[in-house]
């Protein structure tokens, strides 16, 4: 095997007793003495490391590096930001794949292209031919830099020891970073070929490769060979060139769109010009879209597609085995083996991964394009036809930090509701509702920052008569903008709404208020819809243009779901034609306090993107938003940016102790009325446009997007209750807001003193709002929150800005608002902090302590408790039968 190439880590593999094989001209470890199954499993539950230094690494630079890459890759290179990576295919003229590749942008002007080891020579010949037409150059650095894939749930904490605590990359796929590991400069990518939600590939200069490999093992990683790499990638349904891409078992070229990842890897952006394969790929894409719509009339461009396959009978599928549906051969297995997995028990968040393992025979197969999910097929395994099925996938990674195997199971039929007498069910429901009410109101300490118990007055009014009524109304210009109601019997309701609008205007400090939206999210939707409508008001003869750019807080940095493209922005935000992504830019945050916006960096981003809309506001909120500074900058720049503040979480804090958004320069404020405000659950929109302003038209649009745009019936019972809540708020806000903010600061300090890791800036006592965030350890948030719930402390676990998603969350988000309203002060919050520390740090059962603490605080403050109010409410309850 002397002619085989060896990586920087060859000697280490041999010393470790690895079985070395020829892989694409390289002498590589297929497995270590631990063997494939154990290496696979260790990667899934801890951390496997893989020598991937055999893969071809090419630097591309020069004035025309981007046009060259746009021409030879399937992806949109213009969309690749600094410190981002993208998957790409190197297409040929026929729309087949020369290879698949990853493109990394660690440096502004230089791109790193990583290709398959076995294809490197072929790829380079192809690329060298193409680059002649461009002022760009390629440098092969395969020998100069080693590459180690560090994959699995423990990978981040292991690498973070080497980075001395510095964040490895942003917690999103394809993020890059350059770091220092023990004096070695390393380039790290959150990429990999195992499907692990936590997985990195680390590039290091050759001289440091052995050192890094050995350090990783010392820190708990274990080497895994190419065998495990193959079973891992197969479980993740990642294609392998030469099996699931390239030529099929009959020697026919596999069209790129036959590969599931193609829809991410291929861009038809105008930016790409006439790239190699564009025309056949366009035809494949048209066929792909037809197939996805189950129109199988013209499959010429895409006769077969690569799909996951699971063997239901006992046996092992192998590449090349024919697949049948009935008597007809519909394709071949392209990759197949037996893959191990950990069994699990329990459901949902309570799912426990067991130590017990099992194996399943899974694969990928290239099959006729009319094959559907759940189709039963047969695989010819050495002459025997064994039953198999087409599953949607083999594994999911949307519950980090673990990749979760998905075993094929047919949908179970849901039980229809049993028939018979419902009286016992009705009684049971009432009993359970009472039980829940008593538990939540008398035994629990509620720390969910987005919740608030409403006063008795609010609750009674919510349930009283108008709650069954309709009161659609609209301003009519012919009647000098008088509101016209469409139904009779609405005089009282009309008065209530007018009074509510006046109370809300006074509270928000603005010119106009809309109170018909029944949630904060609906308020946002109505505003975004209005902004888009307003943008297009002078040209209604073509499709309306969407909004873009928009600046907001990133969801993982505490941004509010309702102000994201996956929330209320969904139908109103444009796609940037250059990046082919949402025209969204996020507020940069301070490096040393990720909960605070970096104003100077924000100004740079505003100057660059000139956003149409800036949305302040968060759901994980510790600080004031820099509204005034950004307003000033936007005005100085002369931008026509609309500044909005989504105050869902902090609506009830508007005032002297937090922020006055309109005074600081916000034009639009939205909020939900039941978080820090006094309930019930509704939304509100305030604007500061005045009659005669150009943008007063935008306000009128907002009114019409509330009704009839968002609601027909605007829930009159809770609107009545909200008027009472607004009276309470305007009456008591000074004491309430002062108490909330000082209680939060005091609670944070007590938690810190009790030994918990409180997030935020100690200089501000960790918080300027009602919220306190406590870090309880990566991935442990759900467990700790459930433990607290068992002990009647209700809060929610939340991913911090450094974590991958809610199942990986390591923080608790708490709000003092509701307990403040029940009379908790610094003393009670200090007691609570001690009890929580006992439960979180020492695993103590504290339910009784909590019940005792809570028992003294069941009477609501900051509401009308005078005797005459109480007797009027008793009268209302009695006479209304509520």
């Amino acid at each position: 095997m002397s002619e085989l190439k060896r990586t920087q880590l060859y000697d280490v593999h041999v010393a470790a007793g690895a079985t070395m094989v020829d892989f694409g001209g390289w002498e590589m470890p297929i497995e270590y003495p631990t063997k494939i199954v154990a290496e696979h499993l260790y990667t899934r539950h801890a951390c496997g490391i893989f020598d991937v230094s055999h893969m071809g690494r090419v630097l591309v630079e020069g004035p025309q590096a981007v046009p060259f890459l746009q021409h030879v890759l399937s992806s949109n290179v213009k969309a690749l930001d600094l410190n981002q990576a993208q998957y790409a295919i190197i297409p040929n003229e026929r729309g087949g794949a020369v290879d698949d590749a990853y493109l990394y942008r660690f440096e502004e002007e230089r791109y790193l292209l990583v290709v398959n080891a076995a294809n490197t020579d072929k790829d380079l010949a192809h690329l060298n031919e193409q680059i002649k037409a461009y002022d760009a150059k390629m440098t092969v650095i395969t020998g100069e830099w080693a590459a180690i894939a560090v994959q699995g749930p423990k990978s981040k904490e292991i690498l973070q020891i080497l980075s001395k605590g510095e964040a490895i990359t942003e917690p999103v796929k394809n993020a890059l970073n350059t770091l220092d590991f023990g004096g070695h400069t390393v380039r790290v990518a959150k990429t990999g070929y195992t499907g692990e939600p936590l997985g990195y590939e680390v590039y290091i200069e050759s001289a440091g490769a052995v050192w890094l490999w050995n350090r990783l093992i010392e820190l708990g990683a274990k080497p895994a060979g190419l065998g495990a790499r193959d079973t891992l990638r197969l479980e993740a349904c990642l294609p392998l060139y030469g099996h699931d891409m390239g030529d099929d078992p009959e020697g026919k070229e596999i069209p790129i769109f036959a590969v599931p990842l193609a829809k991410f890897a291929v861009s038809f952006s105008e930016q790409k010009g006439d790239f190699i394969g564009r025309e056949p790929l366009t035809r494949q894409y048209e066929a792909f879209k037809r197939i996805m719509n189950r129109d199988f009339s013209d499959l010429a461009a895409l006769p077969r597609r690569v799909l996951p396959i699971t063997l239901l009978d006992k046996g092992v599928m192998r590449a090349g085995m024919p697949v049948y549906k009935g008597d007809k051969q519909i394709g071949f297995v392209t990759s197949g083996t037996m893959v191990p997995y950990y069994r699990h028990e329990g459901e949902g968040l309570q799912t426990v991964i067991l130590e017990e393992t099992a194996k399943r025979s899974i694969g990928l197969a290239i099959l006729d394009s009319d094959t559907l999910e759940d189709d039963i097929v047969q695989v010819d395994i050495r002459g025997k036809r064994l039953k198999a099925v087409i599953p949607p996938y083999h594994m999911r990674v949307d519950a980090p930090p673990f990749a979760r195997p998905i075993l094929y199971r047919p949908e179970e039929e849901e039980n229809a509701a049993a028939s018979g007498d419902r009286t016992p069910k009705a009684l049971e429901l009432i009993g359970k509702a009472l039980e829940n009410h008593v538990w939540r109101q008398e035994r629990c300490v509620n720390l969910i920052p987005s919740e608030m118990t409403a006063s008795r007055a609010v609750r009674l009014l919510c349930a009283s008569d108008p709650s069954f009524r309709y009161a659609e109304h609209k301003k009519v210009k012919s009647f000098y903008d008088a509101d016209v109601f469409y139904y009779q019997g609405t005089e009282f309701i009309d008065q209530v709404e007018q009074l509510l609008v006046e109370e809300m205007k006074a509270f928000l400090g603005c010119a106009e208020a809309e109170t018909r939206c029944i949630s904060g999210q609906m308020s946002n939707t109505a505003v975004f819809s209005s902004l888009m409508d307003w943008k297009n008001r002078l040209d209604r003869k073509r499709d309306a243009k969407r909004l873009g750019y928009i600046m907001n807080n990133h969801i993982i940095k505490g941004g509010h779901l309702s102000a994201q493209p996956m929330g209320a922005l969904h139908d109103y935000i444009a796609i940037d034609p250059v990046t082919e992504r949402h025209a969204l830019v996020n507020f940069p945050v301070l490096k040393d306090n990720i909960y605070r916006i970096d104003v100077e960096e924000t100004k740079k981003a505003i100057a660059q993107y000139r956003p149409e809309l800036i949305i302040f506001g968060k759901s994980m909120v510790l600080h004031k938003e820099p509204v005034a500074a950004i307003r000033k900058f936007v005005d100085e720049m002369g931008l026509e940016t609309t500044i909005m503040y989504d105050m869902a979480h902090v609506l009830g804090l508007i005032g002297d102790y937090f922020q006055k958004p309109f005074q600081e320069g916000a034009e639009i404020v939205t909020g939900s009325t039941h978080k820090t405000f006094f309930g019930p659950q509704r939304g509100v929109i305030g604007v500061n446009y005045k009659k005669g302003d150009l943008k007063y038209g935008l306000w009128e649009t907002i009114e019409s997007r509330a009704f009839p745009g968002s609601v027909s019936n605007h829930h009159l019972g809770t609107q009545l209750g909200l008027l009472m809540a607004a009276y309470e708020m305007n009456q008591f806000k000074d004491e309430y807001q002062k108490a909330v903010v000082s209680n939060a600061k005091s609670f944070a300090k007590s938690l810190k003193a009790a030994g918990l890791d409180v997030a935020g800036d100690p200089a501000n006592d960790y918080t300027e709002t009602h919220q306190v965030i406590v870090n309880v350890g990566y991935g442990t948030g759900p467990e700790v929150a459930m433990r607290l719930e068992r002990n009647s402390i209700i809060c929610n676990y939340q991913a911090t800005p450094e974590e991958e998603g809610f199942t990986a969350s390591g923080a608790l988000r708490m709000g003092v608002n509701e307990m403040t309203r029940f009379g908790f002060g610094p003393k009670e919050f200090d007691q609570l902090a001690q009890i929580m520390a006992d439960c979180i740090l020492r695993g103590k059962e504290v339910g009784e302590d909590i019940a005792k603490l809570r028992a003294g605080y069941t009477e609501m403050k900051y509401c009308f408790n005078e005797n005459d109010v109480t007797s009027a409410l008793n009268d209302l309850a009695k006479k209304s039968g509520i």
Partner: protein
Amino acid sequence: MNFPAELKYSKDHEWVKTIDETTVLVGITDFAQSELGDLVFINLPQPGDEVTAEESFCDVESVKAVSDVMSPCTGVVAEVNGELEDEPQMLNEDPYGAWIAKISDVTAFGELMTAQEYEAFIAK
């Protein structure tokens, strides 16, 4: 690696344990399981199958590949180790305990070696 002296070995890496003059137990050697890697599936013969020395009578699959297991003798399958169907990894963990088949009515053997000879054979 372990090669018990009381067993006989074939050049195809099976072991043979004599029960009586015409009955043997057959399995794969420690060397074989190590070369094959993690075994994940076994295709056992059926009791009653007639088997011929140095011809395939069973196959085992590792994560990597499928391999035939050759019969070290000519005879009739009397019994198979059904446990291996659910736990083929027993072949890796305990190759001499994890017998594959009991073969009776043995009329002929293929070429067999002693433990010492086999050790020398695989060292080549």
